[in-house]
């Protein structure tokens, strides 16, 4: 087992870190205030290779793998987690198109995403439920040579900054009744709805998509009719969970740095508070959590890059890392004492951001359903 990253990966990390430290902080105040994604960062991120990191070279992408993507998202998340939140959903759209699209669809829709001309959307969740995917209510009916969509999708990341959306809807009853579609925002009957105001990851735009007898061309079905569940599950498992995990990983890194720096500078009883065992033990815990989560995230991404089946590992990385981010952010806030709950200090944002990573991209509970299944698999009674 080789636990070391290659020089290429280290250079990638350094490159994103330099970019993130210079270009993102000036945007944070506006993001916190408005909740809007700074779309002016798309062009420099495209030039760096972030928007197209997993897209194939022939569609304008960089053609790198998931470990590279995890490192890039982690470094963005260390500065401001809302940015990788938007980017990871963007990558989900690229992955869905790449895995299930026809050549024409890939040629048409992947390049604008790879080049950062627009942002990617994968719309699954509805008011009827996100975890209960098969229970969705949005419908799609084939009428002559058009699909007519009806329904609404909510809690959709990048809803208002995207030119087209990958939408899952019901074409028949049951698990084999879901299909995936590519809807362009200008298709008749398609529109964006309300914008949500989250307590954290502010700057990752979250909103509603509304379909009112929305007409899309027949060829805009993505994958097989009835294959929509597979599109949703594969994309969420392989790209969504690891993307959220990498975002939360960046938050944990920021928690360690903020807490360790503050503890080294804050003087009480004539010494820095880092000399107090309780505080130093919190830091030891955050330090360990960071390493645990790094290992989980990198291992899951590595497996995906080796084309190994890794749904369990992805679920583990996501549910553990997001929970750990909340634990670490809370400790970081408490290490700051009363300053931790003041808006002008960075650490309170880390706690709010961490909290929002927990339900995003799949709840922790669904993650544990996947893990429990794996744990119990050897003991399942044979029929």
């Amino acid at each position, binding site marked *: 087992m080789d636990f070391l990253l290659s*020089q*290429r990966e280290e*250079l990638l990390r*350094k*490159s994103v870190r330099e*970019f993130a430290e210079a270009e993102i902080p000036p945007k944070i105040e506006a993001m916190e205030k408005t909740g809007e994604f700074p779309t002016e960062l798309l062009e420099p991120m495209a030039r*760096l290779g*972030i928007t197209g*990191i997993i897209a194939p070279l022939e569609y304008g992408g*960089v053609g790198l793998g998931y470990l590279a993507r995890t490192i890039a998202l982690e470094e963005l998340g260390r500065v401001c987690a809302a940015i990788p939140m938007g980017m990871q959903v963007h990558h989900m759209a690229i992955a869905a198109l790449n895995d299930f699209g026809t050549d024409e669809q890939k040629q048409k829709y992947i390049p604008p995403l790879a080049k950062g001309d627009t942002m990617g959307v994968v719309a699954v969740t509805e008011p009827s439920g996100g975890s209960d995917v098969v229970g969705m209510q949005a419908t799609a009916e084939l009428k002559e040579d058009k699909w007519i969509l009806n329904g609404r999708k909510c809690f959709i990341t990048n809803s208002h900054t995207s030119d087209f959306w990958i939408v899952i809807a019901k074409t028949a009853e049951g698990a084999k009744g879901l299909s995936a579609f590519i809807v362009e925002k200008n298709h008749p009957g398609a529109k964006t709805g309300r914008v949500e105001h989250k307590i954290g990851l502010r700057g990752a735009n979250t909103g509603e998509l509304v379909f009112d007898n929305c007409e899309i061309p027949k060829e805009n079905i993505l994958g097989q009719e009835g294959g929509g569940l597979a599109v949703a599950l594969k994309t969420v498992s392989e790209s969504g969970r690891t993307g959220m995990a990498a975002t939360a990983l960046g938050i944990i890194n920021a928690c360690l740095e903020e807490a360790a720096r503050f503890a080294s500078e804050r003087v009480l009883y004539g010494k820095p508070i880092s000399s107090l065992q309780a505080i130093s033990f919190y830091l030891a815990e955050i330090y360990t959590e960071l390493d645990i989560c790094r290992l989980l995230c990198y291992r899951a991404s590595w497996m995906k890059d080796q084309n190994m089946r890794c749904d369990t590992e992805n679920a583990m990385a996501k549910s553990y890392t997001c929970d750990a981010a909340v634990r670490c952010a809370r400790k970081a806030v408490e290490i700051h004492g009363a300053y931790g709950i003041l808006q002008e200090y960075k650490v309170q944002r880390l706690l709010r951001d961490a909290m929002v990573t927990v339900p995003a991209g799949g709840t922790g509970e669904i993650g544990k359903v996947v893990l429990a299944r794996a744990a119990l698999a050897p003991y399942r009674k044979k029929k």
Partner: protein
Amino acid sequence: MKRMIVCVKPVPDPNAWDRLQMDPVSKTLIREGIPSVINPLDKHAVEAALKMKDLFGAEVILLSMAPVDAQPVLREVLAMGADRAVLLSDKAFAGSDTLATARILAQGIRNIGEFDLIFCGNFTLDGSTAQVPSQVAEFLDIPNVMHVCDMDILKTESLLLTQKIEQGTVKLEAEPPLLLSFTKEANKPRYISFMEILAAEKREIHIWDNAILNIDETLIGLKGSPTQMADLLLQPKQRKGIRLTGNPEEIARELADKIHQLGII
């Protein structure tokens, strides 16, 4: 404008300087464990050369005199977009002062062949002498301009340079061949893109020792250095908290002297 040569130097990471220790016997600094980075001002020189590449398709060659373990740092700079790198490395170069270093770099440049422009950073973080650019230019018998904070191409061959001086700027017109050293105001170095990281893995780093450069051994290394270090003292940064005493006029005088000594007046 066909070929640009950029002199770059790996320096100890300034974030790690407080870990520097001195060997009390050899009176040299122990560099192990201190990571190297590219001298920050050199990035502005590389960016200036890359702009020439963008405009004219010029070849950009990096040149560095450093130990062979400098290759990862050079690889990073290649990932900014340069075409190839030449690393001048030989035990015989060790201990060179700026004059000997300039001789070696100049010979390296002669070995590379024809060039239009040579770019350098205005000074390095470690030695900070800022002497090498003028000395390399002197050995190559070409003009040089330091403190360049802006550069424009007038016609294809003519350059309009802005040089920073204490109270303002000087505008100069110059033609290649020329050596220029850049300040940080000159440009914003481009971020290293992932595509370039991948491409740079295939770019060549040629390593040349003195068997290739063939410089007279008395002109390089310690033997070729007119200046020598007689002593080296570690001076840990400690705030001395010197208390000034006396009446206000006396204190004011001493304080003004101290401010003058800092070079501010």
